[in-house]
Structures are given as structure tokens and as C-alpha cells.
């Protein structure tokens, strides 16, 4: 039990340190420097062509949500 708690605490610490490293390493990117960031392939959301994939994954799997498919509504789910 103690080992499990320690493991979890270590994981959270690692995640927090990684997040801190991430944000402190952020450099300001000017608008004219965003050609790569603004590339259509760089989008952080789901693309329209993935719409049906996300639907079937939502039906065939128990998990959903967090930026990958909707969390409820609209399916008799056969």
C-alpha cells in the first residue's frame, strides 16, 4: 500500500517537473514566425475526416471524452 502511494507520488512529481520544464522553455513566437504552427497538419484538435472514426470508437469502447469524441448523447448503440 505504502509502495503504491510512493509510486503514485513519484509519478505526479515527474509530471509536475515535466510540465514546469515545458512552460519555462516556452519562447515567444511572433505572428510571422507561426507558419509551421499554423500548418493545417499541426492542428491540435480532431480533423473532420476522423468524425466517424471517433463515433465508432465511442460505441465500441468504454472510454470517451478529453478531446477525443463526445461523451454522451445520440446513440442507441447497436
Amino acid at each position, binding site marked *: 500500500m505504502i509502495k503504491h502511494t510512493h509510486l503514485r507520488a513519484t509519478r505526479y512529481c515527474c509530471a509536475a517537473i515535466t510540465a514546469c520544464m*515545458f*512552460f519555462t*522553455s*516556452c*519562447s*515567444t*513566437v511572433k*505572428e510571422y*514566425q*507561426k507558419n*509551421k*504552427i499554423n*500548418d*493545417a*497538419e*499541426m*492542428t*491540435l484538435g480532431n*480533423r*473532420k*475526416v*476522423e*468524425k*466517424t*472514426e471517433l*463515433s*465508432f*470508437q465511442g*460505441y*465500441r*469502447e*468504454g*472510454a*470517451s*471524452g*478529453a*478531446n*477525443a469524441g*463526445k*461523451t*454522451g*448523447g*445520440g*446513440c*442507441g*448503440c*447497436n
Partner: protein
Amino acid sequence: MKRILLTAASLLAMITSFAQQDSTGYKSRKLKVEEINLVSSYYRQDGNNAAVTGGIGSQKLTDIANVIDIKLTRYDKKLRKHTFGGELGIDTYTSASSDKVDLKANSSASSGDLRIYPALSWSMENETKGSTIGAGLSSSTEYDYQSFGANLSYAQKTKNKMGEITLRVQAYLDQLTLINPVELRTGSNGEDDENYGSASRNTFSGSLSYSQIVNKKLQVLFSAEAVQQQGYLSLPFHRVYYQDGTVHQENLPDTRFKIPLGFRASFFASDKIIIKGYYRYYTDDWGLHSNTANIEVPIKLTPFISVSPFYRYYNQTAIKYFAPYKQHTAQNIYHTSNYDLSEFSSNFFGAGVRLAPPKGVFGKKHVSMIELRYGHYTKNIQMNADIVSMNLKFK
């Protein structure tokens, strides 16, 4: 059918009213069509663990989905950008297991059913303040299921416009028809009586996401969501067979609380290669925990043509109330033999091709982009599926 026609007519009227505004106002405030997308998909699956027949039996299913959406924009007097969206989706599906609700092959209405799902959205972006507010309405109608959804969102960019925090609340109010398996229909609701009862299922969710541009080549997004479902969360036509051979209906608790946490990153690795990653951890109070990891690597063959291979791994534990065919006993108050809620892992892989030539696809100026994508999906519980999708973008 009447409901479908009314929904389509309302959507058309809304789009027409937007178009009429086009002739008024000066140029900077003119309503213009930003883009129109047509997404078509063909999906097929096969397996041998249908929930309708208690965890055994064919899961053969095909689905043809067509979705059209339109995005319009205009600026108001204060130069805030308004974006209006309209969407209409129609799914036509056939399902072998749905026939077994009545145990008469090819006799149930659901064996070849239609799902129609319109949606409307609006957002207003204040480019000076870096804030965006939005709202949306949606519905979904099929033979035995009606859903209405609404959402509100607020997004705020950081001062240096490198980060953005988004808050969103959503609600889905669903109504399902209680179509019992034929052998469990009693009294006035007998075998040929189609006066079924109905039950409600409501979903409320709140999500918080934060996206950050790390440098010229890397951006990331964190997302956390809390989802509360309540009401009739079983499906009435899902059978459960006890060890003694008796048949019962699926019975699940009337509340479910879910927490999905997600992380995304997009990295422009070289002039031609982009690496996109996604990870999600999910847990709920039914005892289901899952991990999802996805990687996609778009390769730019030319500035306008790219090929994107992808791979997705997913695993989940079973919910507390799952047991296979003839494993449940009368001691289990809650029970299901739905293998979508069992323990399994799945692999999904495939590739997409995207063409966006500056002179239009196949020389057609208004067809600005075409994307084709194929994926093969397998579960380690003998279920597999294939999906092919196409997105055509008009500008």
C-alpha cells in the same frame, strides 16, 4: 420522418436567413461562406460477442455516414468575428444483432435504420482581447433514441497569445424507447405490441483545456473533463443469460461519473515530417480504467500533398458489472454481457492522403481540399472493423 423534415427545413431556413444578410452591411461586415465540408464514411465490423444475444452471436454491422457542414463568418460593428456553423449528418446502418431483438431475422426496424443529427453553432471572437465565447445546439434522432444537446464555451488567450485556456459545459438530454427482447415482453406490451415505454438519460459535462505554443515547431494541449450521467444507462434489448439458462435484461446503475484526461502534442520535426501524439487516461465509477495512445506522422510529399500513417493503441479494464454469457447469477443486481464494457485491448492503424493544391483539387477552384483515410481496427476479443472516410472541402 416528419421530425427529420422539420429539422432539415429549420436548418435550411437558418442558412437562407444568413445568406439574406449578405446583401446588407459594408464589406468588412459582410457575411461570407468560410468553408463547406462534406464528410462521407463507410464502416463495417464483425465479431461474435453481440450484447443483444447475451454476449454471443454476430456483431456484423455496416454504416454509411454522410455529414455536410457549413461555416459562415462576419464581423460586427466592434470588429468582433462571428462564426456560424450548421451541420447535418445522416447515418444509414444495418445491424445483424438488432434483428435478434425480435429473434426474427430481418424483421426488426433497427435491422436497417437511419440516424439523423443536425447541429448549429455560433461563436464570437474578440481578436483584440483574445477571447471567444460560443454556444451550440444539436440533436440526434433514430428509431429508438432521441437526443438533444447544448453547449457553452469560453476561451481566453494569454497576453502573448501563446497559450489559450478553454472552458466548456455541455448537456445532452436523451430519451430512449424501451424495446425489450421479445421473450421478455409481458402483459399489454406483448410480442406484437409496439406501444413501448420510454426512459430518459441525461449527460452533463464540464471540460477545461489549455493549449500552449512551446516554440516555432511545437504546440501542446492538456484537457480534463468531468462527466456525470444519470437516468436509464442500460439498453433494454441487451440480454443477459444467467448460469441457470434464464434470460434477463441488462441492468446497470442509474448514475455514472467519468473522468477523462488528455494530452496532445504536434511537432514539426523537419521540413517534411510532422509528428502528432495523443494520450488519454480515463477512469469512471463503474470500475473502467483505460489508456489511449495515438501517433500520426504526416509526411509532406510536396507543400500541397501529404500522406499520414497513424497507429492507435487502446486498452480498458472491465466494468464491475460485466460477465460473459451464462456467467451471471441472481445475486448480481447489476449485470451486463456487453463486450464493449469488458476487458480488452485494441489496435487501430491506417493512413490518410491529403491534397490541397492552390489551384483547387483536379483544377476545380472551389474544391480546396480532399482527404482520404483508411483504418483497420482489431480488438483482442475477436472483433474487427474497417473504415474508409473522405473529406471534401469547398471554399
